[in-house]
């Protein structure tokens, strides 16, 4: 940790000790959240999320492809994340690094494990042809907590996704006119909690991320059950803190769910 971040850490930790944060939020407050759906006409579904100044755009494309051999009757979900170089000084062009792979896999796990997409309805011809749902996450501005912003944008984009109607003619898929919504069964919400000096805060901003000990992200489904977890950062949590974080994640996801029209 550089000298500057150490000074910053002290300042942030002192504030948090007093129940305050740099931007005036309470410890468990989210920044302002806005969700806009359907901005990209070429994509089958899309959504843009602003979480404070963090901005994430997700586009969903649907193509025909082959199913995996162990799930011949299910459509396929593929999640990819791009930390676009224009979003932050240290984001570099090139193949995805461990941060973007981790981000994509956290979002993927939330959607997959909550069985958000009814993949059985995406089967065209068992064992041969299914719909493949590509979820591409584009981080357009990084100001902390890319995980929650990306997860919210991904599910919003899926809610917004329209599948082309089709019929099968001589084993070929023919598109018909009109669209139907992507079949969804669940709407997971991911809540990220950071630990700074043994205090838990929700939705860490970028400066808080630079000085946090560790973070924990929990995806919560519609019923309030946990469906995916990822701890990150080179610090630790006591088992008691993990349970505290789990309760906090339940409460915050319920609060966010009320604001979203899913």
């Amino acid at each position: 940790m550089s000298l500057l971040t150490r000074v910053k850490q002290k300042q942030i930790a002192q504030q948090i000790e007093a129940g305050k944060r740099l931007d005036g939020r309470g410890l468990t407050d989210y920044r302002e959240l806005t969700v806009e759906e359907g901005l990209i006409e070429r994509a089958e579904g899309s959504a843009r999320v602003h979480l404070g100044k963090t901005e994430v755009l997700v586009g969903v494309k649907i193509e025909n492809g082959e199913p995996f051999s162990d799930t011949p009757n299910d459509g396929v979900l593929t999640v990819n994340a791009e930390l676009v170089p224009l979003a932050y000084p240290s984001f570099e062009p090139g193949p995805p690094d461990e941060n973007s792979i981790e981000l994509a896999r956290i979002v993927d796990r939330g959607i997959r494990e909550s069985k958000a997409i009814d993949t059985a309805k995406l089967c065209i011809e068992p064992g041969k042809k299914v719909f493949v749902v590509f979820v591409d996450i584009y981080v357009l501005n990084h100001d902390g907590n890319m995980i929650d912003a990306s997860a919210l944008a991904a599910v919003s984009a899926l809610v917004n996704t329209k599948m082309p109607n089709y019929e099968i003619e001589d084993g070929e898929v023919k598109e018909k006119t009109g669209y139907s919504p992507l079949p969804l069964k669940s709407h997971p919400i991911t809540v990220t909690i950071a630990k700074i000096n043994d205090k838990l805060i929700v939705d860490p901003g970028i400066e808080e991320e630079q000085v946090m000990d560790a973070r924990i992200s929990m995806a919560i489904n519609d019923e309030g059950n946990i469906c995916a977890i990822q701890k990150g950062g080179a610090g630790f949590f006591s088992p008691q803190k993990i349970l505290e974080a789990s309760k906090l994640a339940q409460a915050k996801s319920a609060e966010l769910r009320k604001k979203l029209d899913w």
Partner: protein
Amino acid sequence: MNDKPEKLIDKKGIRLDGRKADELRPVKIQVGVLPNADGSAYIEHGKNKILVGVFGPREMHPKHLSQSDRMVIRCRYHMAPFSVQERKSPAPSRREVELSKVIRESLEPSVFVDLYPRTGIDIFIEVLQADGGTRCASITAASLAIADAGIPLRDLVVACAAGKIDDTVVLDLYDAEDKLGVADVPVAYMPNLNAVTLLQMDGVLSPDEFESAVNMAVEGCKKIYIMQKEVLRNKYMVVKEEAEE
């Protein structure tokens, strides 16, 4: 692929491989198995067979990655092409990249990194055979390999998973339970500091089930921790005897 058994755990609470709900698979550990590495360990956790080598503290290559106030830890988790049923391409998959990161982050809190500024250590993990729970077994072995390299640690890191199969929360899932079960919760833990350094989960658990899974995994970790310390102590007992001869 229609060989899915009807039940993963029977009425008496016995699992397909004959274990009880809170029973670990057999674990065998060795340290100092690689002559060219500064520290090394080999673990057999059930059918998992994993080899870990640690190099360093040494000068970083490339040099600009080194940091003036601390040691940098690098970690590569890699599966051998023959370690799984269908051959795995030797190129690092996205899963391996993610696991390398979370394993590194699970070990970092245990190392006194500020004692070795401007240096780096490399942790190389090779999964020779996989049977579910490789990230946990890798962490258990990697922490021993770091200790074997003589690097000062706050505590050993030990890892074990818990999860849910059918309606039961169980310890230490093997491959079939992981694939056909409801949820898997890998946990890495430093027993002396009561610190969880890795926590992941996939599958669906209610908050209560999650709590009992975490507690069960922590108890499993404590059991493996005893074996870890034993292995390390035995190595130095041999060294001591040789020195006295």
